[in-house]
């Protein structure tokens, strides 16, 4: 393994683990019925939603090669499938991959 790659991996894992560990240390005095816990719960859901929206609208990696229109079309259609399939997670997930691959191929 090359030294630079190993160092990059170690730095990445350190940056990631530090947030996780700080979260556990901060959790010690927090009761699950407290207002502080409810606030953090809201922050967590909101941060995840912000991350998902950013991934779809301003993606990095392979997804950035797909057009904005095709990404939004796939997401809206999959949410529609999610609701008509009585909130089944599998159908919209599988359909999203097939649909985006097809749209990218033929549009």
């Amino acid at each position, binding site marked *: *393994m*090359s030294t630079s*790659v190993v160092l*990059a*991996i*170690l*730095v*990445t*894992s350190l*940056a*990631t683990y*530090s*947030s*996780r*560990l700080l*979260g*556990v240390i*901060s*959790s010690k005095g*927090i*009761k*699950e019925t407290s207002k502080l*816990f*409810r606030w*953090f*719960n*809201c*922050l*967590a*859901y*909101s*941060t*995840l*939603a*912000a*991350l*998902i*929206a*950013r*991934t*779809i*609208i301003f*993606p*990095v*990696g*392979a*997804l950035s090669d797909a057009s904005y229109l095709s*990404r939004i079309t796939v*997401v809206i259609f999959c*949410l529609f499938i*999610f609701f008509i399939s009585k*909130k*089944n*997670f599998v159908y*919209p*997930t599988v359909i*999203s*991959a097939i649909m*985006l691959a097809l749209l*990218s191929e033929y549009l």
Partner: protein
Amino acid sequence: MINKEFFFKGFKSIIKPDSPALALGCCFIAIGALLKNLGFNIQESIFSTMLTYALPGSLVMAESMLVGASLLNIFLAVWFVNARLYPMAVSLFPLMMHKNQPRWKYYFSCHFIAVSAWLIMKSNYKDIQKKYRIDFWIGIGCATWATAVIGTFIGFYASDYLDKNIMMGLAILNPVYFLCMMVGAMKTIQISASVILGLLLGPIFYFFSPEWSILLGGLIGGTIAYFIGELRVN
């Protein structure tokens, strides 16, 4: 030590019909292929997934290496993207803290905090006695972590057969799956407002500061949602 019954109960949650295993595995297939294209060997790719185990962080590391960023830049970029793990940990671990459980379990298992495992735990913890929730969580974490490692392995060796369109298809799986899970979790006014505000504010803040957009969107959206919920209760 770890209670086997609850550990395997958590581990098996990954094979439920609505588990995130498929989406998670497919996304790490894309990561495995990406790392190979970056010049990583198989050991480095597996090592990266095992130690980092966070999709956006791995993507940021890969992008940063592509542009020749320094180690400090990589650290800061990954830290910004993965800072979301902090509120995720604070909103999960109080549910699992028990005086009869050793501390090492918490410090060890915090490595498993990722969207997929977090959402599974959030939707199942009420069915598990508080004392054994940490063992159940370690089971979920080991299962999702193993899925990620296997996905990376497959992606690395399948990368020669995956064209651009298939890679795009694999990359959209995770956000769509998580979006559906988040929409499915919108059962209270606070959670619903948190999700909707996060979805709106994350992209809006991107125009002002791409690095801070997720954290600002989460902080402001989550705080507004908290007060909306509290006002409604009062």
